[in-house]
């Protein structure tokens, strides 16, 4: 079963075409991939890079898909990632 809210979130983003990006605190990440799996737009992917503890890090594999909904931030058990909406035309400096 899909939960109600979840569905809503996805559709709303697709309607409005909001843009967003994520910030990652790499040393906190433990590579659980919650962010990747539960990103409603599929913007993230687990990357090949490891952090200092040897955990695989997620990366914004499809930046154009990210709507800044912060589901990744809500899901991340390690407070290592979060998403933000970008103001129109804004570009992200530190991907």
């Amino acid at each position, binding site marked *: *079963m899909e939960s109600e809210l979840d569905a809503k979130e996805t559709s709303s983003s697709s309607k409005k075409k909001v843009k967003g990006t994520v910030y990652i605190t790499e040393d906190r990440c433990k590579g659980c991939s919650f962010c990747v799996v539960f990103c409603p737009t599929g913007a993230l992917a687990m990357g090949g890079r490891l952090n200092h503890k040897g955990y695989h890090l997620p990366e914004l594999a499809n930046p154009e898909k990210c709507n800044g909904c912060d589901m990744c*931030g*809500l899901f991340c058990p390690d407070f290592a990632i979060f998403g933000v909406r970008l103001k129109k035309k804004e570009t992200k400096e*530190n991907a």
Partner: protein
Amino acid sequence: MSGTPQNPVEKLLRTERMPHIWCPGCGIGTSVNCFARALEQANIDYKNLHVVSGIGCSGRVAGYVNVDSFHTTHGRAIPFATGLAMARPEAKVVVYSGDGDLFAIGGNHLIHAARRNIDMTVICVNNFTYGMTGGQVTPTTPYSAKASTMPYGNFEDTFNLPNLVDACGAVFVARWTIYHVRQLTRSMTKALNTPGFSFIEVLSPCPTLYQRRNKLGDGVMMVQYFKERSTIENGANTADVALGFQGDIVVGEFVERERPTFIQNYNTRMEQVLGDAFVPYEGVK
């Protein structure tokens, strides 16, 4: 970097203590994200927010939140929080702890605080096991699941937490899984805004112990199970929401009722009986 936006949870954290001790894929941290967002939404002044935990992995939450926070003894977060709530009626007291802590050793305090309608929000991270001590059986371990003290599978029946708390008169009772981050956030907000004893059960993965022993995969797989087998039924009869091993899960906001809080009851009654002789109770002045 001044321009960099901040994760809303950051403000709540004792960042100098990060990274925390929780395992990869453990859900406790996820619930803390929701809690941080709920605090924003409920407009809680951090100065008047106090978090109390017992002992356990979940009980470590008190140690990571940058508010007045108390890591007490195993099972006794609620009575400590009761005293704290009595001293600080204007504060919001939140008990954040695990299923074992709150319902095994701490069961009596929980039912009595609910009965008395002490003004507190209890967040129970239910990972179906004692994480901190290595994965023993708890009153929430589903029938047949393995645990270190149930090597051949659990043969005891479980508590239905929402039902138990409901029977004791809690004013707000909800259950979500950590898949339901938005809904959980919303229920936390509601609980924080509801005077009296509110209770939220949060089903959460424990990949290291519960899942490993039961061959249930990693954190993601558990959350995926939560996603697939949960049905939202707000207002469900709590008697009908018991859980089985990897079975269907009813989530939602089950109970909302109005009852005067303990201190309200006290002030009303004493006022009635003692009249002017009564000095209304206000805690620390």
